Every structure is written in structure tokens, then in C-alpha cells.
């Protein structure tokens, strides 16, 4: 905090509780913000950071607790209310219209705060604000023609033009180059000096220590504590983030003897993504039969894209993938399935299964071409029925019958369908991404059992998760990704979540 810090916080979120179906996102969380302060909010994925900020911005309403500005409770029904009180939110996905210019976006945004400005005035406004903070945003450029960094500045300008006193930035540097990140830090410092209070959501330890005045850590929906940045270290923050764990080695599934020759080898793999988050750069790894290789990393570190490239859904930009020595980089998904690769997609709803098809149809799609199940393109219904019955039984899918529409099942049962489909053909390689996301406890346990069973049967398993506890419990080795690159590979036996947390946060360990 600056030396002339005000004695009373500008904004207080008091005892906020918010639950969504099945999860408590925030439990009696309190946080405050002084004018002129940069307050970092740190936490793992799913810790409740975004929910807390959404409540302060009026995107979500708390079940209990209140948000006060200058001591007065706020009734926040929508972002419009928050904006009118001077609270601005720069989200990860910018709320700019790409086909309009920066000035036109400004006009639209301002006109809804009751300020009717012309496009000419909007241009002036952008120019003036841009000059004041040294932002260099061209008012007449189309948003879509701007770099991500400039788009972010335009988004910031939009908030500033509406006289924001409180700014919330959600993982602002995750989309930026190091150069742009440095410039953003400078800008935030200047804004704070101007009296703006800033909430900075982040998971990068080094970054928050450098920029922030105070740091609050959330874990599993609860506030762990707020510390002054001056007194904190990367180590102390990592400890707060990941929990009770210390230097003591974690008890894991135990180191398993494994074959000398890897089943799947990835050499210098690079993969492009639609956004900068998720790109994969020069990743190499080996996957041995009978092991689970955990893949750690915050979301958007490239784990999804890496596994998709291995499964054949995404094009490889550079590098090679070898299965039992053969280069499979240019094979189709179906050819790779035939060679024994199974894939549990990261986004179950978008890519995991077809909701409008029956459970039976979902189970049989990848193998429908096998001679067992079709002849001359005509399905052998008897064989399919037997296979589906067996799969439903073996994988404990709780369903009224094989003809039930898959989309009407609960999440846990849907994932059982996915796993049954992928595992019932006895794959030799399993690529699993966020397989337990959104599932109830019983279903999570079931997924773990299945994965272990596959490993015991000799499959090579790559298992990506953002949950460190899960990875440590399930893996033999853990590979940590940070911004699309391998930050390190550690043995699960002897791994500490502190060490993993540091790697995930981009700290370089020696």
C-alpha cells in the first residue's frame, strides 16, 4: 500500500457464500480493497476466485453476505449496476465487438451508462485516456486487427472511461507475451498511483509478488488468508495455495516396475491453438506400458491440445508421435483407435459423446466398422446388443436400457458411457483429460478404479488433471506443463504438492 494509504477500505466483500448445484464455490469469504492498492487473489483452478469476483461485478448473486462500497451496501443485480458504481471487470474473454473500432466499442459501452456520445467524441475519449496512461491504443483501428495485448488495453480503457474506481482483472497476463506483461504491470502500478483499487486474479506466484501490495489466497471456496506481498515468499504462497502439504513426501500409489521400452513417444511436439492459451511448444515425453503419467498444470497450459494432438483430433504443427516405434502423426483418429489409442476428451459435453444418440449407439460408434459388428456396412444387431449389454454391466452404467438417450443421463453416468466406449476395446494407450471434472464423489472413485485397472492390465496412461491431490494419488510420474512447455517431470513418489505448485506457477526450480 502507498504510504498515504486511506484508513478505511474502499470496497468490502463481507462473508460471501455462494453455492452452485453440487459445489460450494465460496464459503464465508471476506476480502477488502483500498483505494490505490493492487490486491492479488491467488488460488488453484476451482478455488473460487472467479466466483468471488463475479459476485463483486454483479454477474452472480451471493446466497449470503454483502458487498459494500465506501461503507454502503450495494444491490448488484447486473454488471450494469456494478459499472454505475465504478466497478469494472476485464475478463479473460474480452467483451469487445471485434468488427467495431475501439472508439465505436467505447461509444456503445458509454451510451449504456446513459452518456450519449457520438463516434467523434468517442474517438477523442479514447485518444485522451490513451495519452493519459500512455497506452497507445489506436481509436480508429478495428478491434479484430489489434494484438491481444492491445485488445486488453482497449478493454481497460472501456472500464476507465466509465470512471472505474475498482478494477478487476482476471488472469490478465495469461494471454500476454512477457514483454506485454511487463507493460501491463507498469500500467497497473500507474493506475493504482492514480487512486484506482485493483483486484488481480492470478495463479503466477512470481508475478503477484512483484506487482501486488497484498495477496489473498483462496482454496476450495474458503479464504485461507491475506498477507502483505513484502512478507510473502513463493514458498509460503504455494503452501497456502495447495494446502497442508509440506516437504514430506506424499504417499502415492507407489513406484511401479515398468517396461524398458516406451509405448508412446512424443518428440518435440508443437501444436497451434485457437487462442494463445493452449498452444503447445516443443514437448517431448515417453509413455511406458503399465504406468500412469500424470499431467499437471493450470487450465490452459496446453494439456488439452497436447492430448488431442496425440489422439489425432488436432493437427500437429511440428514434431512427431511414435507408437511402438511407428510414426503415427499423420494417421486419422480412427486409424489411431485401431492401433490401440483411447481418448477421454476434456470437454465431455462438447466432444465426449453424442447426447442425442442412445447409450448403445454411443458405445458402438468407434467399433461399428469391425467385422464383429458389421458386415458390408450393415450392422449386426445381435452382436452389438450383446456387446452393449456387457459394457453396461462391466462398467456399471446405471441406465434404464441401452436405448436411453445418452444426454439424459447424469454426468457421472455419461462419463461411464465414455469410459466404457474407450476402455472396452482394450486399448494399449489411454489419453485422459479432466476425466473427473464435475462428477460426484462415487463417480470419481469409479473413474480412478477404471484407470488403475487399465494400467494394471498394461496400458500406458496419460492422465491430465488440474487437481494435484488426484494426480499424486493416481500417477507414477507427473509431468508439469507451464504455458505449453514442460516445466518438469517428477516421480509421484516423493513428489510434494509444494514442488508441483511451484512448477505449475512458472517458478524455475533447480
Amino acid at each position: 500500500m502507498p504510504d498515504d494509504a486511506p484508513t478505511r477500505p474502499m470496497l468490502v466483500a463481507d462473508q460471501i457464500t455462494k453455492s452452485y448445484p453440487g459445489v460450494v464455490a465460496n464459503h464465508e469469504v471476506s476480502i477488502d480493497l483500498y483505494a490505490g492498492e493492487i490486491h492479488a487473489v491467488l488460488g488453484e483452478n476451482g478455488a473460487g476466485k472467479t466466483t468471488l469476483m463475479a459476485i463483486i461485478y454483479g454477474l452472480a448473486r451471493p446466497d449470503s453476505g454483502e458487498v459494500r462500497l465506501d461503507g454502503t451496501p450495494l444491490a448488484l443485480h447486473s454488471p450494469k449496476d456494478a459499472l454505475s458504481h465504478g466497478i469494472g471487470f476485464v475478463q479473460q474473454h474480452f467483451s469487445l465487438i471485434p468488427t467495431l473500432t475501439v472508439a465505436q466499442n467505447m461509444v456503445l459501452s458509454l451510451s449504456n451508462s446513459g452518456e450519449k456520445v457520438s463516434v467523434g467524441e468517442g474517438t477523442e475519449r479514447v485518444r485522451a485516456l490513451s495519452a493519459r496512461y500512455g497506452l497507445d491504443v489506436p481509436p480508429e483501428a478495428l478491434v479484430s486487427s489489434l494484438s491481444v495485448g492491445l485488445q486488453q488495453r482497449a478493454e481497460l480503457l472501456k472500464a476507465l472511461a466509465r470512471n472505474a474506481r475498482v478494477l478487476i482483472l482476471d488472469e490478465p497476463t495469461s494471454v500476454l507475451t512477457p514483454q506485454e506483461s511487463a507493460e501491463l504491470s507498469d500500467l497497473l502500478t500507474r493506475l493504482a498511483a492514480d487512486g484506482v483499487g485493483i483486484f488481480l486474479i492470478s495463479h503466477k506466484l512470481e508475478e503477484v509478488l512483484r506487482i501486488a501490495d497484498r495477496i489473498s489466497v483462496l482454496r476450495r471456496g474458503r479464504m485461507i488468508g491475506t498477507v502483505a506481498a513484502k512478507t510473502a515468499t513463493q514458498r509460503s504462497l504455494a503452501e497456502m495455495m495447495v494446502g497442508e502439504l509440506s516437504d514430506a513426501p506424499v504417499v502415492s500409489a507407489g513406484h511401479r516396475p515398468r517396461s524398458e521400452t516406451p509405448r508412446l513417444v512424443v518428440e518435440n511436439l508443437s501444436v497451434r491453438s485457437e487462442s494463445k492459451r493452449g498452444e503447445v511448444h516443443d514437448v517431448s515425453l515417453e509413455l511406458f506400458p503399465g504406468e500412469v503419467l500424470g499431467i499437471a498444470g493450470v487450465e490452459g497450459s496446453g494439456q488439452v491440445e497436447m492430448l488431442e494432438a496425440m489422439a489425432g483430433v488436432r493437427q500437429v504443427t511440428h514434431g512427431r508421435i511414435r507408437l511402438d516405434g511407428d510414426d503415427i502423426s499423420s494417421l486419422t483418429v480412427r486409424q489411431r483407435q485401431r492401433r490401440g489409442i483411447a481418448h477421454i476428451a476434456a470437454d465431455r459435453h462438447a466432444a465426449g459423446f453424442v447426447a442425442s444418440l442412445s447409450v448403445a449407439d454411443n458405445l458402438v460408434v468407434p467399433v461399428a466398422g469391425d467385422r464383429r459388428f458389421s458386415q458390408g456396412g450393415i450392422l449386426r444387431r445381435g452382436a452389438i446388443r450383446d456387446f452393449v449389454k456387457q459394457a453396461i454391466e462391466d462398467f456399471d452404467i446405471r441406465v434404464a436400457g441401452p436405448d436411453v438417450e445418452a444426454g439424459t443421463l447424469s454426468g457421472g453416468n455419461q462419463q461411464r458411457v465414455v469410459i466404457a466406449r474407450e476402455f472396452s476395446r482394450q486399448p494399449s494407450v489411454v489419453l485422459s483429460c479432466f476425466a473427473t471434472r464435475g462428477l460426484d464423489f462415487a463417480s470419481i472413485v469409479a473413474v480412478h478404479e477404471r484407470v488403475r485397472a487399465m494400467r494394471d492390465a498394461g496400458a500406458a496412461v496419460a492422465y491430465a488433471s488440474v487437481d494435484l491431490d488426484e494426480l499424486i494419488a493416481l500417477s507414477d510420474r507427473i509431468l508439469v506443463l507451464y504455458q505449453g512447455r514442460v516445466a518438469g517431470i517428477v516421480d509421484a513418489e516423493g513428489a510434494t504438492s509444494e514442488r508441483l505448485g511451484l512448477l505449475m506457477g512458472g517458478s524455475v526450480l533447480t
Partner: protein
Amino acid sequence: MTLDWFSLLLVAAIALAAPLLFAALGEVISETAGVINIELEGMMLVGAFTGIAGALASGNIAVAFASALAGGVLVAAVQGIACFIFGANQVVAGIVLNILALGATTFLLVSALGADVTKSAVTLERLPIPILSDIPYIGRALFDQSIAVYLAYLAVPAVWWLLTRTRFGLALKAVGERPAAAESMGVNVLKSRWAALLLCGALAGIGGGLLTLGGLGVFTPNVTKGIGFIALAAVIFGRWKPVGAFGAVMLFSLVDAFQIRAQALGLPIPYQLLVALPYLVTIIALAAFVSRMRPPAALAINYER
């Protein structure tokens, strides 16, 4: 072929272009806001019908055009109710409305107007502008037309101004591109889309009215003969911009005017190729310049909060 021949070609092309232009500009507005109107043809057809009906009932040309406008708006309103309220697929609703418009106007022509009484009481008079209409070669084409034709051309800069220079236009672009982001900026997506759709209906209705009232004053079954689809093609070929759509409409109309004359001249080009040209060039343009032919991102996708 003399200069006079070209002058007459131009006169014809400009008159042919006007109804198309109204419809295309309406569709530009609507598609900018993310609403596609396959029933543009139906809007024009109903406008052409109600225009004649209005003329027969009132004998007043202004009333006739007002009822043409109302006819287009009626079709637009049905589309809006089906898609915005009941969440129907915009394309499907559009096709159904085309069928309905063709059936209803043909049926009512016989049953309500009486098939033989199709000659309108009034048609649009030419309104030559003094001096300007005497300019050699282009004078007649540009300045000896009806008021509606002048308005069609004035509508081009008007729509351009509306879409690029007004807050309403910016809001339409926003809801056609990223409705969720627009909503987060406080724009009412549904209201904006309704406004764009009804405006499109009004313009297409006038365009349809111009087809009948600006010509012989006769309504025949399916009098639009696919002009609405050419207008749809013009919007795409014009890359969803008013000036682009204007260029496309002019090109298509010149080809059309030429086609009518080419037959008389006995040129060795099959006229059918020229008739199919608007559709062919639109497909080729889409296929060849796909990266530059980017439709509004939220086009034809209903918005749900």
C-alpha cells in the same frame, strides 16, 4: 450498338435495380444484426400484393406504398414471433414463410381481388428532374425516374450512415457479431434484432410494391420470380455492406437489362447463363474469397440469455 443503346440499357438497369436495392438494403440491416431472412422473397411478394390491393382500395399511390410496407412488416413480424419467441430455426421459418406467402397471395389474388381486376387504379408516375434529366446519355437513366427510384438510391447512403455512424447501427453490429458481449455492454439484443427485422420487412415490402406499382400496376402469381433470392445473393456478394450490396445490385441489374436486349440482338450467349449469373458469381465469390466473405458471426443463431 450505339451510345443511345447504352443509354437505354442504363435506364432499364436503374429501374430494374430499385426494387432489388430496397430489399437488399433491408437485408443488410437485418443480417448485420444477425437475422437472416430467407423469406425476403416472401416479404417482397406480399408487399407487391398488398401494394396493389391498397392501390385498388384507395386509388392513392401513397396509401398503396404504405400498404406495401405494411405487407413486408407483417411477414417480418411472423418471422420474429416464430424465431425470437418460439425459438424456430431462422432458415426453416424463412422457407415456410416463402411457401405461405406464395400460396396466400396467389389464393387471395383470385378469391379476394378477383383474377381479372388486377390492373391497378394508380401506378407510380415518372418524375423527371428539370435540367439534370437533359444531360446526354446518363440524364434519362439517372434523373427521369419515379420518386421511389430516387429514394432507393438515397437509401444507400442513408443505410450506410445508419449502420456506421449511429449508436443504433453500432448496437446492431454488436448483436450480430457477439450478442453476449453486447448484452454485457447493456445492449438489448432482442429489441435490436426486432428493430432490424421489422426495418428489413418495411424496406422489402416497399421494394415489392415498387415491382408492381412502379411497373404495369398488375399483380400476377409469383410476380417476384426469385428477385428476393437475388437480393439475398447481392447482400453476400456485397459483403454485408450497403455500398457493396448497391454495387452487386447494379451489376446484377445491368446483366439483367443486357440479357433482355441481348436476345433481341441475337448475341451468341445463352441468355439463361446471364439469368443464372447472380447466383453463380455469388457462389464463386464465396468459394474463392471465403476468408474475406465473412458473414456476421452470430448470423442465423437465435440468442438465448
